[in-house]
């Protein structure tokens, strides 16, 4: 390169994204980025290849900087704003979607359910341990025949004197077989209710789902509840009906609005670096117009997604965000992220299919991210309903 060629600008710097963040948000982002550089990136390809991640140790380390339940107040949680939580998700997912999933499920699904709908005793018992990474939580809503349509779940909770008895099977449950506590959603005579189930309760078992080609650095499990008997105090008192688990999902989706862009950013930065050093037909791959057109288009989508994410973050911090607005972000950003990951793979060509580079790992992960927390189609229906007033779910 000629000596005074300008230093290349990183994609998100071209959008001057930092100008939209305050010093505290930048400090939180930098702390997570450094954490991932030190504790995740050196091992992630191995974990992914083996399909095994030391989740319990990692949870303690994540807790060390305050990542678990970071946006909740009290009970040992850091109490940051929602935008900071989003930025943290972005950095985690830039390392791997599986690590972000661990944090999302712990903080936004399991802890949030207890925080929002639990009794004071339930909060005191579980939240401090979960914030410290000493107890891992999972969130059991999906069943084999009820994914997009959780209103149909079959798991039942029946009164037995003052106690409850739960029977049913949950599947695709992140953190399931490493969890100390499961938030389980079940049908009762009084509609859908949530239960806090310590995983050492008799009749509870969890088996890991193997042979995944996506999110391999994340534990996914099937939960079996076989006459699990719980005291009356195990029910989440304030969670009534399907709206309660959907509120939790909206929290986690918000993290994905940012998180998915982390995976895309990592792909794009890797690819720009690769294109600048790879020589084809006697010149740098980065010097071809076709490459630059791809890079420019991907940067546009990444930057627009980031502006949308930050806008939604500010709305959430102002207490004004609506669920269908979270759907806008989830639909757009997971979609652009997977498109970027796949396009980046074309620039890396053969090298792109290996684990020496993160792009296909990210692309494969994003297949799950596109599906969980509401599939793209479900978000289209949510947005469609907001636009037309017509529900097209059934």
């Amino acid at each position: 390169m000629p000596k005074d060629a300008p230093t290349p600008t990183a994609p998100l710097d071209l959008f001057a994204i930092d100008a939209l963040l305050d010093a505290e948000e930048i400090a939180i982002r930098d702390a997570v980025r450094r954490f991932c550089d030190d504790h995740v990136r050196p091992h992630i390809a191995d974990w992914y290849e083996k399909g095994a991640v030391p989740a319990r140790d990692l949870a303690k380390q994540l807790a060390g900087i305050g990542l678990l339940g970071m946006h909740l107040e009290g009970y040992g949680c850091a109490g940051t704003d929602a935008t900071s939580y989003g930025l943290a998700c972005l950095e985690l997912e830039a390392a791997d979607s599986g690590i972000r999933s661990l944090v999302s499920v712990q903080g936004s699904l399991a802890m949030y359910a207890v925080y929002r709908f639990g009794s004071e005793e339930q909060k005191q018992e579980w939240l401090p341990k979960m914030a410290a990474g000493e107890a891992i939580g999972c969130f059991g809503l999906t069943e084999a025949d009820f994914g997009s349509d959780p209103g149909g779940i079959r798991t039942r909770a029946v009164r037995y004197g003052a106690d409850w008895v739960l029977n049913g099977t949950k599947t695709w449950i992140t953190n399931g077989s490493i969890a100390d506590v499961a938030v389980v959603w079940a049908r009762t005579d009084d509609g859908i209710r949530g239960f806090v189930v310590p995983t050492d309760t008799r009749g509870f078992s969890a088996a890991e789902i193997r042979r995944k080609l996506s999110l391999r650095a994340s534990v996914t499990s099937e939960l079996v509840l076989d006459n699990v008997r719980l005291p009356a105090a195990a029910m989440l008192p304030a969670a009534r009906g399907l709206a309660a688990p959907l509120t939790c999902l909206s929290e986690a989706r918000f993290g994905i609005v940012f998180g998915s862009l982390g995976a895309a950013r990592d792909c794009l930065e890797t690819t720009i670096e690769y294109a600048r050093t790879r020589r084809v037909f006697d010149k740098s791959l980065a010097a071809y117009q076709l490459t630059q057109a791809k890079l420019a288009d991907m940067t546009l989508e990444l930057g627009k997604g980031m502006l949308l994410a930050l806008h939604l973050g500010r709305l959430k911090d102002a207490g004004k965000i609506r669920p269908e607005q979270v759907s806008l972000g989830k639909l757009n950003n997971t979609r652009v992220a997977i498109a970027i990951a796949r396009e980046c793979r074309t620039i890396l060509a053969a090298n792109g299919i290996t684990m020496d580079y993160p792009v296909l790992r990210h692309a494969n992960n994003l297949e799950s991210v596109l599906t969980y927390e509401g599939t793209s189609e479900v978000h289209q229906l949510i947005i469609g309903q907001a636009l037309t007033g017509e529900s097209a779910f059934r």
Partner: protein
Amino acid sequence: MKIVVCAKYVPDATGDRKFNADNTVDRVGVDGVLSELDEYAVEEALQIRDATDGEVVVVTVGPEVARAAVLKSLQMGADSGVHVLDEAIHGSDSAATSLILARAVERQRPDLVLCGMASTDGGMSVVPAMLAERLGLPQVTFASEVVVEDTTVRIRRDGDAATEVIEATTPLILSVTDQCNEPRYPSFKGIMAAKKKPVETLTLGDLGIAADQVGLDAAWTRVDGFTERLPKSAGTVVTDDNGSGADQLVSFLVSQKFV
């Protein structure tokens, strides 16, 4: 125990470095950070504080942007900060910096003053000693381990030939190496707490220092010029054709006057 840490704001070593027209390092127009080597001093201070139930005050001398070094230390857990900010400070050498630091530090009446082993930009390693001289305090440099028991401090220094253990009593000035601990990440709670912690901004006037005692004109040395390091060249690849590799390497080393 009251501990003061002297922490410097330096250009980020991973970014571009620039110089001003007066041949001083540009600290304002480039990305800067708390000097990595000072993070060890902050960490050591925090550990001693937590073991002795004390207080950690961070002192930085530098332009407006240098406040970031104080903030980072507060995010890591320091209790309060002092930022000496005055236009006349621009271009100060180590001697002048140590004068400013001495006045700012002595107001705190510390039991212990901690410094990093060098700044990552200037790399002089002399400020702790100059500070000790100005304050009339004993100093031990390049501490690899610090153990505090009441007013007694045991310091391990790892030399090339031997390791020595030195005992001293407070008040005392120490510089610590990158071997003495593993600096913590600021936790989110630390980051959020930092903005509520007090930072005092002082001018030279507040410290009783005249503008002409410091700055570029008062410096004992002057930088006449600088040359940027040449960009890395491609390097030479030695191919080992039927055992000739060693000979080729030797002649390369000889040609470059390495041997």
